[in-house]
């Protein structure tokens, strides 16, 4: 099937910076609407700016489509326009089928009412009638997995439970299009994989997902296509992996430290470049089990700092932390760091099996509390499949841990 379910044509949206003016403009717009006059929304008034400008793309049935970009690039605004919460000031959006709510952290529950009561109300808001909700109620409760808390006021829920309940209601309302805004950052591991499964099910059932996440790894593993938003415009459009790569490149090159899930920190010491090198010091893209790997971190300290700590975290593609070597635990004391420099971490024999391993690389201050610079989702180590390796025997799982078999017979 290749039919288009979402069609966005030259859509723009403007916001007003000043609250007072925003109110006046709001009243003026209402007045014009009532009198049957055109809104002239394509013109910018004083203090207004384009939050999104000239956005066009199409999403087909059965596709998972990602919106990536820094904080404030307009991702959520775009999602809200797809839902009809905000109306475009220019251009046209056409949606085929029933569109779900914006699934985001804390999906509009009444704090004093119990989970049970909120399920009914939320479902009613999503357009689910009495019969339908009674049929699906048990399924929703089972998916949300909130146990005895069902009859407890929602205000006593943890943020994870809140999201679980919101997600459960939304997906069971069976929309044709699901809009997901950064929810996986809250739930625990078990719930995250449950959500992922549900989303995959959703897509294979011929439905459509629009997905926003700062977890770029989940973007590439789930979505086929993506757009990169930057400064209210689409700057990259196409295959999800190439869009994410373009974004990674943009973030690393950008001098500005972003405070979002991808890159954050004070910027006093900046990670300028991260390279994966082989034994001869040549940069390589993919590695094999048992191979030599050196991770080279080029940094620049904009001011003199004392005893910083370098950390590399290796994750599995399911975001499980495999190992976390740090300069502190390796008892490496870096007295003073100033200006440009290079820190390397060498693995003589790579113990990882074939797969993709996201890395998080960060530099902290001496207390380990303040972050100078952290790259959370910007680097990925790719290990290729190999048949036989003389150094490391074949084993299942993620890593090879050296060990010895011995048989003692009676």
């Amino acid at each position, binding site marked *: 099937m290749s039919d288009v379910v979402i069609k966005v044509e030259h859509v723009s949206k403007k*916001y007003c910076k000043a609250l007072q003016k*925003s*109110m006046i403009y*709001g*009243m003026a*717009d*209402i007045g014009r*609407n*009532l009198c*049957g006059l*055109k*809104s002239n*929304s*394509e013109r910018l008034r004083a203090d207004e700016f384009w939050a999104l400008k000239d956005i066009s793309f199409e999403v087909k049935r059965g596709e998972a489509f990602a919106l990536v970009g820094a904080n404030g690039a307009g991702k959520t605004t775009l999602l*809200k*326009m797809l*839902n*009809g*919460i*905000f*109306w*475009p*000031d*220019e*251009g*046209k*959006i*056409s*949606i*085929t*089928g*029933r*569109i779900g*709510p*914006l699934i*985001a952290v*804390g*999906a*509009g529950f*009444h704090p*004093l*009412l119990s989970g049970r*009561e909120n399920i*009914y*109300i939320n479902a*009613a*808001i*999503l*357009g689910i*009638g*009495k019969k339908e909700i009674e049929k699906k109620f048990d399924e929703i409760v089972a998916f949300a997995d909130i146990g005895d808390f069902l009859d407890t*006021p929602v205000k006593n829920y943890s943020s994870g439970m809140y999201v679980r309940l919101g997600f459960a209601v939304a997906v069971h309302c069976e929309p*044709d299009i699901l809009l997901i805004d950064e929810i996986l950052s809250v739930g625990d591991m078990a719930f995250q994989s449950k959500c992922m499964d549900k989303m995959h099910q959703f897509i294979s059932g011929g439905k459509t997902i629009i997905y926003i996440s700062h977890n770029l790894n989940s973007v590439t593993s789930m979505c086929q296509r993506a757009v990169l938003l930057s400064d209210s415009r689409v700057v990259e459009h196409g295959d999800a992996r190439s869009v994410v790569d373009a974004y990674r490149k943009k973030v690393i090159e950008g001098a500005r430290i972003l405070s979002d899930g991808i890159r954050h920190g004070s910027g006093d010491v900046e990670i300028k470049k991260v390279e994966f090198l082989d034994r001869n010091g040549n940069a390589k893209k993919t590695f094999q089990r048992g191979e030599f790997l050196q991770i080279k971190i080029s940094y620049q300290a904009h001011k003199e700092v004392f005893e910083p700590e370098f950390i590399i975290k290796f994750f599995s593609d399911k975001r499980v932390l495999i190992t976390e070597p740090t300069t502190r635990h390796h008892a490496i004391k870096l007295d003073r760091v100033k200006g440009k420099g290079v820190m390397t971490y060498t693995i003589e024999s790579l113990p990882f099996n074939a797969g993709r391993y996201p890395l998080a690389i960060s530099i902290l201050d001496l207390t380990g509390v303040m972050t100078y610079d952290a790259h959370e989702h910007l680097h990925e180590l790719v290990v290729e499949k190999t048949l036989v390796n003389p150094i490391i025997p074949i084993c299942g799982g993620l890593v090879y841990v050296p060990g010895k078999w011995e048989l003692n017979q009676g």
Partner: protein
Amino acid sequence: MADSKTVITTYEPDNSLKNGYLLTFKQIYQELTENKWLMYQLFKRDLSAMYKQSLIGFLWIFIMPIINVAVFIVLGRSGIFNFGDITVPYPIYAILGLAFWQIFANGVLACSGSLMAVGDMVKRINFSKKSVVIAAVGRGIISFLIQIVLLAVLFVVFGAVPSKYAILLPLFAIPIIFLTIGLGLILALLNSIVRDTGNLLSVSLNFLMYLTPILYAKPRIGILVNLTQYNPMYYLIAAGRDVVLTGEISEPVGFVYSCLFSISIFFVGLVFFHLTETRIAERI
């Protein structure tokens, strides 16, 4: 539900302009009939959340009018305030009027704040916002029904006898409800853009209550006579009160005009809201 796959929704600036005004009424009608279950759920939610963190709960519905009336009895007994010619025991007269008044006052207040109260949802889900505003009137209606019980108790306590038409009492709430919804829709929308609306409203409702002959009889002379003449709330409340106490509406013409006024405000409110509701989410 119709096959949802075939439904195509388009969002464009000035959608309502392109569709024309006649279609507006059809859309409003459709929206309201499709969302009955939602309105009921929202109403139920309001009701069960209303006194959730309160010890005496629904007793508050009795306490408010009783205190109001008690203050006026004290003022009257002290000779500070003159009730005018009231032939029935004062508490019956006052509570009856207040029961009607609070449908309007509480209703309009609840409506105007209703969108803000669900602001979080409005920003996440595209759903029928009219339903939210209309459901907000529900609480006032429930309070009204409960206060009828209080009224019945007062009739017994004072040994007074209501007219045989007193049973029609709930019917007289209907025009007030229409007026409340119409005004509520307009105020809810304005309030979501300019917050002054809500504050201004609480002040003027207080003022309006004292201007409307509810806690006193309609005076025969003075500026209030002229004002009352153009006050639809007076006719709507007085008619209901007359029917219970005497069985006869003393000013039927004014009552009919006020009913027509209520219904036209109701429709104006709906259209006003429908044409401009796409602006709510971004300003709230």
